[in-house]
């Protein structure tokens, strides 16, 4: 049993007193071997010849002759370079700079099989590190990748240089809130003569993190469901699961968000718990009204494709949407960032943005995607493939849609799995704090749709290069 307590944020002065939200991390090493990053190829006869040559050159001084260039211990085994310890190689290349005729370092081709074309091998590396340690990945040297790119890679987040309201980051002194609210947020409340609110109270759920766990593919093994549910409970966030799955495996609790589809409607009778949030799969006005009536107090969200037109649903009173893209972040042939910006802008124009909550999923696979998705208009994101990779799941081919995804889940030890997800959540939250701190924002709620704090490659390039011959925009 893990000792991690359910984190809670209680208001200052409440009976429980004030506690800063905190996720307890602890090392959770990989349980299944991952291929080393590099292959170390040593020409053994040349190595032996080199040692003899150096023994002669250094007059039999073994210490000098056997002094090898690796500072990471790759050649530090009992047989030195004859049996290099590849798992220790960090690819510094010093050995092959010094002795190119003896040793070569090659990227391990097995690594290319990790992930898929969207959740790339380097992302897998990062996710595994985050899940293993719970820490923010820190490395030397600057950015090594492409200038910009597609999707989330085509935008940068802003920072405040000299004039800024907060001065935090993960090491700072001032508190940055990562709490978000999902639910009905009416423009005003009515009060009676005694000062008590009248009429039905708005249904809102507050989460200490702007991310939830989305439903895994139908092939997900029961321990994975258990891990998702338990990790969500401990983090104080929510795990979204299909209603039949919840019922079949006894996953119940306020932190479990059942997804109710038209086909599952009959199962509603068996539901014995009161979720904080429930999702209706697709838009069915009658079912929506009935769900609200049945689950009094629960927030009811409608789960629709990200490219769906929300206007009819908003008109009908829906105030929480789960906008779903595929696992590569596309919906209706377009990437999430553009779709979210448009949806957000439409709600702003309609004067309804403050009353509506947008939850989104699909394509959010790295820590930086969370603030970027929120900048584009989401209130919170639901995570999917990144969680499975953190649990050392492997994709077979492209992992694009929930129904067709072929994901090989390892046999899970639940407490290990839960700790991996807690670690991942802590790392992502810390990275979110870094981004918010850099912007000088005190709370993630203020990041939502704050496009002035986003920089888009297309726009910046146009501004910078429009007068340069050959730039076509």
């Amino acid at each position, binding site marked *: 049993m893990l000792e991690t307590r359910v984190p809670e944020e209680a208001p200052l002065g409440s009976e429980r007193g004030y506690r800063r939200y905190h996720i307890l991390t602890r090392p959770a090493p990989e349980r299944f071997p991952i291929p080393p990053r590099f292959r170390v190829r040593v020409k053994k006869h040349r190595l032996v010849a080199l040692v003899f040559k150096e023994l002669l050159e250094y007059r039999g001084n073994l*210490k000098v002759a056997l002094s090898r260039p690796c500072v990471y211990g790759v050649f530090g085994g009992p047989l030195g370079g004859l049996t290099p310890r590849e798992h220790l190689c960090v690819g510094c290349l010093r050995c092959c700079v010094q002795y*190119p005729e003896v040793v070569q370092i090659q990227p391990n081709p097995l690594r290319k099989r990790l992930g898929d074309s969207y959740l790339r091998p380097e992302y897998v590396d990062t996710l595994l590190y985050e899940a293993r340690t719970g820490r923010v990945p820190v490395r030397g040297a600057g950015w090594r990748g492409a200038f910009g790119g597609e999707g989330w890679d085509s935008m940068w987040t802003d*920072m405040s240089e000299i004039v800024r309201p907060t001065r935090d980051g993960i090491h700072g002194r001032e508190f940055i809130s990562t709490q978000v609210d999902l639910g009905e947020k009416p423009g005003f409340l009515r009060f009676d003569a005694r000062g008590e609110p009248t009429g039905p109270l708005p249904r809102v759920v507050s989460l200490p993190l702007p991310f939830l766990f989305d439903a895994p593919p139908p092939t997900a093994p029961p321990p994975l469901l258990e891990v998702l549910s338990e990790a969500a409970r401990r983090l104080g966030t929510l795990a979204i699961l299909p209603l039949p799955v919840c019922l079949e495996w006894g996953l119940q609790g306020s932190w479990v968000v059942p997804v109710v589809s038209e086909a599952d409607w009959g199962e509603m009778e068996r539901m014995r718990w009161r979720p904080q949030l429930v999702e209706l799969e697709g838009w069915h006005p009658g079912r929506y009204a009935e769900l609200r009536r049945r689950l009094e107090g629960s927030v009811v969200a409608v789960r629709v494709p990200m490219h769906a037109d929300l206007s009819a649903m908003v008109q009908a009173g829906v105030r929480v949407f789960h906008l779903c893209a595929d696992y590569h972040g596309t919906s209706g042939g377009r990437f999430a960032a553009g779709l979210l910006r448009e949806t957000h802008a439409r709600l702003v124009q309609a004067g309804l943005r403050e009353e509506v909550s947008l939850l989104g999923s699909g394509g959010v696979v790295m820590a930086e995607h969370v603030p970027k998705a929120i900048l584009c208009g989401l209130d919170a994101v639901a995570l999917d493939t990144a969680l499975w990779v953190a649990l050392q799941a492997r994709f077979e081919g492209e992992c694009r849609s929930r129904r067709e995804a072929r994901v090989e889940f390892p046999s899970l030890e639940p407490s290990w799995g839960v700790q991996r997800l807690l670690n991942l959540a802590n790392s992502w939250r810390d990275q979110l704090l870094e981004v918010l701190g850099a912007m000088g924002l005190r709370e993630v709620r203020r990041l939502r749709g704050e496009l002035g704090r986003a920089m888009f490659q297309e726009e910046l390039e146009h501004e*910078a290069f429009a007068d340069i011959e050959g730039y076509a925009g």
Partner: protein
Amino acid sequence: MPERSESVAKHIEALHRGFDLWPTLPFHPPALGDARWTEELILSTWVQAQTGRPPASGLEYRVGRSRGGFDCLEFSFLPEDRWLAEEAPIDTSIPLNRRSDGPQPRIEIPVPWYGAGMSFGSISEQVMLARAKAAQRWRTFTCTGEGGYPESLLPYKEHVITQVATGMFGVREETILWAPIVEFKYAQGAKPGLGGHLLGDKVTAAVARMRESLPWVSLFSPFPFHSVYSVEDHKKHLDWIRAIHPQALLSVKVSTPNDVDMVAVGSYYAGAHILHLDGGYGGTGAAPEIAKKNIAMPIELAIPKVHRFLEHEGIRDELVLMASGGIRTAYDLAKAIALGADGVVLGTAELVALGCTRCGNCERGRGCPFGLTTTDPELSLLVDPEWGAERIGKLYASFEFELREILRRLGLSSVRALRGRTDLLRYRRAEGGPDGTA
């Protein structure tokens, strides 16, 4: 400094042999390089650091494969019959003080670049010395970074910029008085908005002494200056330096947020002589990965924005704009100037000249296995300051040669005439995969 053992001497010899040999191998080392610093750029930088000229072997020495920015820009050279003659005089110098007010000296550097701030702790004292020696030989500058001012740099103090950053590590009155230029670092391109970070493993007793801290404890430079909430406060900072050292030029190093143009104007009115823009893809000894790619814009996009805004405000010729954060080659530096900078600041390129393979393990354990970004007493012996100065000097020579060639082919007799000449650039959209591969 500790004495070299026979083992260290063996490794130095083997390393130097490897730096010479690698660019001549019939194959490119498969694990070397990335989209920004391709294997060919690294190897060609080694060739330049060895020979003082760009490689003649066909190695690519101008652009990388990042599919954007400098890698998509090229010069529209004149037809050959309109090039300047080879013997035509070409001026590559730039002034570092363009202000019409103040008693500060009119410092000029003969080449449009100087060395970036790299602190004692993030790099070794030997590397700092190598950079300072090269700066002195080329009559340009290097910068202490925020980690104190080792006294071994004093013979080169006319060519050393003192950096004052938010941790104030090693900042003393005398270190400010030693410096012809004092640089305020508000932000760093590799980690904009996040401050500095020196991991505990690198805080040796010597580093801790210099920074007046405790050994083996991680050090953070907070972000931002806790005494600055406004441009007025920023002016107060510069006034503070002016009060201590009225003759010093003042440089303000900032990153590249949305409002970087406004920051530039604010810095000018606060009294800065130099605005040092450090783009989002700049180098670092350690930074959160999330910061490197995602926060603040690349330098290629920030330079024109600032240049035009300063022009619009009528103060462009009063402020020197130095750009950094991904200047890898002579072509990058010329493109940065064509986009609107006066000059550039070199960091990673100098380390690559000294043998950096960009493996990114600067922060790990004992630090850089090549003796560059390390404070390990034995590893740091791998870089002899004289050898290092020679390598950096040769790289400078190659860059100067290439810059003259670029100017000659553009028909320009001064690098100052290149500034803001975007009409001399052409945009070529990248082809291939996401990392530039075919």
